[in-house]
């Protein structure tokens, strides 16, 4: 490769200058006096600045990003303990089992909430969570844009149980089964209390088409 600037300083010095200018004192002093090296430094810095402005639409970025994420995922998967060889349950049976389990958990949740047994209830007021289908309340905190007063076909709500102000409130109940499904999803969301001590529950509720 051609000499850098006037050629007096080696590549390693220039690398240090680029990444840690405070340490590359000799080159920094030289750059202040040498027009060739000053121009080199200016062009390198401009290239750096232009690189920092490259966005996600660039094919090179998409390629490097996806390879980096997939490699990390594969490495994690390789470290994960092997599958325990559980018997695979047919989807139909799994669905009913899940519903039955969800209904039980739902009952426990409701009973526990009523009795004030849940850990977050003991610390502060429990978040008010009401899920139904119909018009969206003014103060709903959706995970996607919802317009107050608009009918929703599908919506994802997130409720943080450690945030007493957080609540999802919609009016116009259509069917008990749909409310149960929402609670079932809440129960199925693991962990309800996350590792950082906050409770994250993502509820996905869907209204049947034509059911208004």
């Amino acid at each position, binding site marked *: 490769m051609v000499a850098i600037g006037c050629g007096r300083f080696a590549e390693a010095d220039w690398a240090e200058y680029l990444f840690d200018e405070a340490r590359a004192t000799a080159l920094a002093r030289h750059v202040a006096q040498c027009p060739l090296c000053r121009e080199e430094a200016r062009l390198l810095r401009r290239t750096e600045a232009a690189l*920092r402005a490259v966005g996600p639409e660039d094919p090179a970025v998409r390629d*490097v990003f996806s390879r980096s994420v997939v490699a990390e995922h594969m490495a994690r998967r390789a470290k994960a303990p092997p599958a325990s060889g559980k018997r695979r349950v047919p989807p139909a049976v799994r669905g009913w089992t899940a519903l039955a389990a969800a209904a039980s958990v739902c009952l426990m949740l409701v009973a526990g909430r009523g009795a004030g047994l849940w850990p977050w209830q003991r610390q502060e007021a429990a978040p008010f969570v009401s899920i139904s289908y119909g018009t969206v309340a003014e103060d709903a905190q959706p995970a996607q844009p919802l317009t107050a007063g608009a009918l929703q076909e599908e919506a994802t709500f997130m409720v943080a149980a450690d945030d007493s102000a957080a609540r999802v409130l919609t009016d116009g109940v259509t069917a008990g089964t749909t409310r149960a499904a929402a609670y079932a999803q809440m129960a199925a969301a693991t962990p309800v209390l996350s590792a950082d001590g906050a409770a994250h529950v993502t509820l996905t509720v869907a209204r049947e088409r034509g059911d208004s």
Partner: protein
Amino acid sequence: MVREGRPQVHSSLLQSDEVLHLVDAAKAGDEEAMHRLVAEAMAFVYPAVLSMLRARKAAHTYLSDTMQGDRSAAALEEDAWELTHATCLAMLDKLHTFRGRDLLGRSVKFSTWVYAIAQNQVRAALRRRWREHRRRAALRARPDADAPAAEDPPEPDAVASPEELAVERSERALVRQALAEAPLTPEQRDAVVMFYVLGYSQAQIAERTGVQVGTVKKRIFDGVRKLRLYIEGRSSARADVGGM
């Protein structure tokens, strides 16, 4: 509370039903499918996360990973990259749980699922930072505690003139062209993109690529230098054509 409206993003494969084939293939362990899925998810998630962070910043509820409430636009973008990475990784890790249907058999869009993961990541990260911020503030309030250095004042966003903006746009276009055409080795290109665009530290790149930090530094420097020479060559060629 801050409303985190979904930003307008261009319609992508992620929002179509075709993505379900890709999801099935990725679930089956097809790495090529995973690559495509992550690339599509990135294009969808990055603007969404950036928009969430901007909304937080506007509502003064944003904290950067260095516990500063107000930072430059570049720092916000760097943060968005980190959270986009975390979202895409969580998406792959949890892919086996996505069935495209809820318990009652109703359709759930893949993009909605990914968006919810992104929101979880942003909220969890900010909650973690605020908790740490409060912990540090409590420590500072104790008279016997070692007083940490005062926080740096927020960096004001630089205001560029129209001429400067035009030059920046032109240079950005040249750099994109250079990334595709300049004779960088794949390792140099990866290191340059990871360092300058995705915001990884040199140590993180070394860990991901399995080489020493010194090697990473050399790859980045050689890459930048090749890009700068390529750009200079293109600019000179343009100037020659312009002068004819």
